[in-house]
């Protein structure tokens, strides 16, 4: 075994590089305080996050209706999901459509606005105004947007479009199969200047000023400056924002459920999480719903990993 040369002091070395190998058990004893500090968090984290993830994997391979014990069915749920469930494909299609539009758009808007705000005075005021929609309750604001989108001529949007002669008769924005999802996307983008937006602003303020001065002396244009200095300097923030955006846009459910109703007209706003909710908490098919959850997890995980690869090699 490794030569043990135990240091007399029993308290942990604070970040000091310890090259002397000792047995793991001894080191664990040495760091008992660390474990004590972390124990309460880890207990809850394990019970309500780690175990559920593993349990969801197990359940996805069973038939479980919460009355009888789970029955092992192997990959039947997944086969049914991919081979038979037309509604699932619709949910995937809608979720992707929603994510591909709102994700990049919200992300780019956040970045551009953060960049513009960083160039002016009254930064705090502008930040506040753009940020506020993202901290409002989606459900509460959905009610207001539903009023704006109201299908009769009393709806403000319909009224204005009628007045300007863009439409001939009132549009049932949240009932029409074609307009429902786009209408919800607008609301979602309105709410999308959130955490990533703040992280961008903080990161932009952290870019050393000397770099811009140097670029200025070299005669760089604003665009070159943005592309060659700003973006590389805030890369960790860009990565963080991208991952957050993907994860949140794939979770879309609150807005669609409230605005389009559940189920929506011809399932035109049916999403993956909506499908999961339907099977888990309305039909109580926990095994099948778990399979949906695992598929959703794999999708977000794969896309997040690809983004991490693309945007960074070491951070996060």
């Amino acid at each position, binding site marked *: 075994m490794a030569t043990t040369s135990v240091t007399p002091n029993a308290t942990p070395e604070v970040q000091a590089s310890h090259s002397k190998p000792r047995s793991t058990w001894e080191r664990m004893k040495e760091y008992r305080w660390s474990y004590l500090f972390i124990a309460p968090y880890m207990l809850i984290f394990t019970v309500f996050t780690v175990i559920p993830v593993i349990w969801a994997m197990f359940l996805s391979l069973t038939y479980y209706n919460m009355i009888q014990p789970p029955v092992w069915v192997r990959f039947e749920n997944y086969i049914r999901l991919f081979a038979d469930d037309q509604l699932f494909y619709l949910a995937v299609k809608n979720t992707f459509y929603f994510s591909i539009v709102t994700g990049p758009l919200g992300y780019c808007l956040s970045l551009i606005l953060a960049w513009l705000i960083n160039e002016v005075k009254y930064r705090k005021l502008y930040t506040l105004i753009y940020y506020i929609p993202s901290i409002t309750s989606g459900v509460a604001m959905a009610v207001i947007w539903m009023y704006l989108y109201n299908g009769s001529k009393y709806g403000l949007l319909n009224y204005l479009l009628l007045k300007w002669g863009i439409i001939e008769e009132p549009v049932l924005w949240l009932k029409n199969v074609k307009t429902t999802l786009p209408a919800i996307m607008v609301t979602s983008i309105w709410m999308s200047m959130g955490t990533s937006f703040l992280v961008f602003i903080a990161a932009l303020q952290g870019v050393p000023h000397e770099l811009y001065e140097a670029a200025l002396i070299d005669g760089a244009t604003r665009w070159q400056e943005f592309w060659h200095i700003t973006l590389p300097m805030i890369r960790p923030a860009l990565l963080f924002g991208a991952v957050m955006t993907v994860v949140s846009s794939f979770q879309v459910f609150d807005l669609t459920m409230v605005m389009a109703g559940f189920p929506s007209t011809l399932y035109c706003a049916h999403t993956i999480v909506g499908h999961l909710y339907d099977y888990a908490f309305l039909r109580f098919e926990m095994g099948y719903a*778990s399979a949906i959850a695992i598929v959703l997890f794999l999708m977000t995980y794969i896309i997040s990993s690809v983004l991490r690869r693309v945007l960074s090699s070491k951070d996060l």
Partner: protein
Amino acid sequence: MSAKKRKAPTRGKAVERVTTGQIVIYAILTLGAIIMSLPIVYMISTAFKPVTELLLYPPRFLVRVPTTKNFSDLALAMSSTDTPFIRYIFNSAFVSTIVVCGTIILATLAAYPLAKHKFPGKEFIFNLIVSALMISGHVTMIPRYLVIRNTGWIDTYYALIIPALAGSYGLFLMKQFIEPIPNEMLESAKMDGASEWKIFTHIILPLCKPAWATLSIFTFIGTWNDFFTPLIMTKSDSMKTLPLAMRTISDGTTIARMGAAAAGSFLTTIPVILVFIFFQRYVVETMTYSGMKG
């Protein structure tokens, strides 16, 4: 070069370009800001509209003769379910406050060793927590529901509070914040014979206060606005939180009832906005830490 010290990048040479550029930026930002605030203004305006104005054609954006009747209507409208609207406000406020306090305690305790100690398993634990950042809450929701069902916590405050205490974002933020605290400070305390607990309470805790402001805000907002957790964890009307109550109100809302619904939205969103405005100055400073510096 005698470039003036300014916060925003300046171009000393082409004065004209700067000013026109600046004006364009201000114009874009202001126009955007107006568009962004329209729905909020509309909500506030509608919340104070009397029925006559709600039924007006053509519809008006702003209120003319403001009234508080919608708020009293709201109390009435909900009374059919035997639960006064104030109960939802209480539920939301109570759950959010407890989750904020608990998260601060647990996240700070756990972040200290993760940031400053090199105990076996640290990498593993940290990677686990970072991975959890990328897992949507819906994946764990089914087993989480089953766990809570087994403990008999369904339709209690426990179901809304306990699982929320171990959010990975809070821990991550605190860890990033504690990491830059100089090691020499901790080491010299150790030389003087301070215990780990003493180092934590006397050195780490006082330095963590700015991060707590940020952590509190985000935890508060997240819990207050959470829709999915109470949707599946609560059953009775008296356990519902504001977002769930808003969903009930939104079902089949006619134009005439819109005033009460807007009043509900008002009560749901305004507290959060006020809390944020109050703490805003701490937030952007601390956000630097959650931006994962390389």
